[in-house]
C-alpha cells in the first residue's frame, strides 16, 4: 500500500511475475532473431540491426496488446486478476522494450547523416499530406512520448501527488497511444512487407483488444443499467443479512450513482465505498481477509468499521451508516467522512437479540 515510497515493494509474486516477463521478452526477441537471420532465397541474410529493431518493436506491440487485454479479461474472469496485480511492471517493461526499439531505429535510420536524428525523424519523409505516404515514424514517436509519460508517473508516489483523477486521465492516454501504434504499423511495416500474415495479426490484435473492451463494457453497462434503477430516499433496504456471504459483500447503487460495498464478517455488517483509494478497484468484489476488507486488484486493505488501512498504512475511505431492522440490512446513503468509525450492525443470532 501507499505512503511508503520504495522504488518497488517486492514480494514473491512480483518476483515470479517479473522473471516470467523477462523470459517472455527474451524468448520473443530470441526466436525472432534466430529465425530472422536465416539465409533467404537470395542466399543473403537480413541485417541484424534491422532485425533487432523489428523484433523489439514487435515485442513492444505484443506486450502492449497484452497489457490492454488484461483489464477486460479480469472483469470477465477473476483468474486474470493474477496478471492484473503487477500490470504496472508489465507496462514499464513494455516502455523499456519500446525505448530500445526507438533508440535503435533513431540511430540506425536517422543517425550518421547530415541532419540531427530528431530533425530527420520529422523531415526525411515529408509526405504529411498523403495517407499511404504519411511518415509513420512520427506516429510511433508520439506513442513513445505517451508511454514515457506513463512509465515516469507509474509509481504510487505520482498517483498520490497528481491525484487519482489526473493520474487516471493521464494513464487513459494508453488507448490513443495504442491506436497510434496500430497506425505506425499499418503505415510502416505493413506497407513494406508483402506477407498477409502481418495485416492479419495486426487486425487480430486490434480487434481482440477492442472486442474485449466492448464485451466487458457491455457487461458493466448492463450492471450499471440495473443499478441506476434505484430511486430511493432516506435509508435504503438492501437485503437480508443472510443474502451476504461470509467475508464477502454485496454492492448496492446509490441514487447519485455512487456504489457502496456492504460486507458481512464475524456476525457483523459494515458498509464502505466500493472504490478503493488506490486505483478505484471494486472493493465489493474483494474479501475480508485477516479482519480487513481487501481489494481484489492490488490487495490494499481497510478496516471494515472505519475504512482506515491497518498500520503502518494510513489510507482512508468513506464509510456508511448501516443497521439491521426487521431482518433487513438498512443503509444510510449519506457517506461519512473517510476514516469515520461506524459501529457495525450485529447480525441477530437465532434465539438472541441484535
Amino acid at each position, binding site marked *: 500500500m501507499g505512503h511508503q515510497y520504495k522504488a518497488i515493494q517486492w*514480494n514473491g*509474486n512480483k518476483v515470479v511475475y517479473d522473471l*516470467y516477463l523477462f523470459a517472455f521478452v527474451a*524468448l*520473443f526477441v530470441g*526466436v*525472432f*532473431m*534466430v*529465425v*530472422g537471420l*536465416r539465409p*533467404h532465397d*537470395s*542466399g*543473403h*541474410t*537480413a*541485417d541484424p540491426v*534491422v532485425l533487432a529493431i*523489428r523484433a523489439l518493436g*514487435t515485442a513492444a506491440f*505484443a506486450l502492449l496488446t497484452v497489457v490492454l487485454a488484461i483489464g477486460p479479461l479480469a472483469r470477465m474472469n*477473476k*483468474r486474470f486478476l*493474477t*496478471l492484473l*496485480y503487477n500490470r504496472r511492471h508489465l507496462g514499464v517493461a513494455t516502455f523499456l522494450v519500446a525505448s530500445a526499439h526507438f533508440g535503435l531505429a533513431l540511430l540506425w*535510420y*536517422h543517425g*550518421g*547523416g*547530415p541532419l540531427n536524428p530528431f530533425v530527420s*525523424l520529422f523531415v*526525411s*519523409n515529408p509526405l504529411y499530406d498523403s495517407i499511404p505516404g504519411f511518415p509513420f515514424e512520427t506516429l510511433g514517436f508520439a506513442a513513445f512520448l505517451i508511454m514515457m509519460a506513463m512509465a515516469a508517473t507509474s509509481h504510487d508516489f505520482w498517483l498520490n501527488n497528481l491525484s487519482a483523477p489526473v493520474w487516471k486521465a493521464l494513464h487513459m492516454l494508453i488507448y490513443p497511444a495504442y491506436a497510434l501504434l496500430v497506425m505506425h504499423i499499418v503505415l*510502416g511495416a505493413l506497407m*513494406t*512487407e508483402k*506477407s498477409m*500474415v*502481418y495485416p492479419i*495479426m495486426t487486425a487480430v490484435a486490434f480487434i481482440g483488444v477492442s472486442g474485449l473492451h466492448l464485451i466487458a463494457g457491455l457487461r458493466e453497462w448492463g450492471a450499471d443499467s*440495473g*443499478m441506476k*434503477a*434505484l430511486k430511493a430516499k432516506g435509508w435504503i433496504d*438492501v437485503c*437480508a443479512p443472510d*443474502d*451476504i*456471504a461470509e467475508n*464477502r459483500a*454485496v*454492492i448496492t447503487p446509490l441514487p447519485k450513482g455512487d456504489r457502496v460495498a456492504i460486507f458481512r464478517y464475524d456476525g457483523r455488517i459494515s458498509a464502505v465505498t466500493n472504490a478503493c483509494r488506490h486505483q478505484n478497484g*471494486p472493493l*465489493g468484489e474483494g*474479501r475480508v*481477509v485477516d479482519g480487513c476488507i481487501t481489494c481484489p486488484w492490488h*490487495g490494499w486493505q481497510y478496516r471494515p468499521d472505519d475504512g482506515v488501512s491497518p498500520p503502518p498504512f494510513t489510507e482512508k475511505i468513506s464509510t456508511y451508516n448501516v443497521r439491521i431492522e426487521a431482518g433487513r440490512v438498512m443503509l444510510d446513503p449519506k457517506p461519512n467522512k473517510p476514516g469515520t468509525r461506524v459501529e457495525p450492525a450485529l447480525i441477530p443470532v437465532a434465539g438472541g437479540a441484535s
Partner: protein
Amino acid sequence: MSVRKGVIDPAKIDAQEMFIGWAKAPAVDRRFLLGALPLGLIAGGGASWLIASELDDPGAGAWLTNATHKVTGALVSAPYPMLRVSDPPAPFGMRTVLVVAQGKCTSSLKLADKEGLPVEASGVLIERKDRRMLEVPPFLDDWLNPAFIDMPGAVAALEPVSLGSARLAGTIMDSKCFFGVMRPGRGKTHKACASLCIRGGIPPSFWVRTKDGRESVLLMTDAEGGAMPMDILPLVADAVEAEGEIVRVGDLLQFRADAGAYRRI
C-alpha cells in the same frame, strides 16, 4: 423482497478464493497460472517465429565488414565519387566501384583535385550482384594513396554512350543501403534513411524491374549527367516513373533525367 433490485452479489459470480498479490496464490489461481503461463510463452514464441519467418527476402546485398579491401583504379569525382578499375575479363574491360564515406555524409569527400589520377583506395566492400561500392573513412589520408600504374585506355578516358530515351518505372534507392548496408534497404520503412543518405551525397539509384522479374539498377543523374539535386528527396523509396535518357559509361548504366521528370505512380 429479498435482495433489492440492482444490487450485485459478487459471491454468486465468483465463489472462489481470491488472489491477493502479497499473499500465497490460492490453488485455483496456481492451477490457472500453471496452464496460462506456458501457453503464453508458446503463443509469444510462436507468434515471433511466424512473424520472423514471413519477412521478405532482404535482397542480394552484402556489406563485407570483416575485411579491408584495396581497390586500385582511376578516381572519378563527378557526378559521384567512384573508381574505374581495369578488369579485362569483365564486360567492356573494366569495372566501376562507387565510393562512399562511412555513415551517411559522402559529400564530405573532397576529390575534385584528384580527378582521373590512379589511386589505391582502402575500405569496406559493399556488393549487390555485379555492383560494387567501397566504403571509406571520411578523411582522405586514411584511405587514399597514389598508385603508380598505367591506366588502360578502357579506364582512363571514357565517353558516355547514349542508348536512347526511355520511360522507366521503378523505385529511387540510396545506393549504399540498397547495395547491402541495410538488408532490406528498401520499402517505406527505409524511406527516411534513404532520403537522408541521398541528402548526404550517397548516389541515388533507379531500381527498375520488368514484369518478367528482371531487374536493373541505373545510377541517377540530372539530364546533363550531373549529380541529382535534392528536389528528388520527396520521391525517394516510392514507386515513380520518368522519361529520360539511358547512358552507358563504361560498365555503368546511368539514367539521365531532371528531378521534375519523375512522378509518383
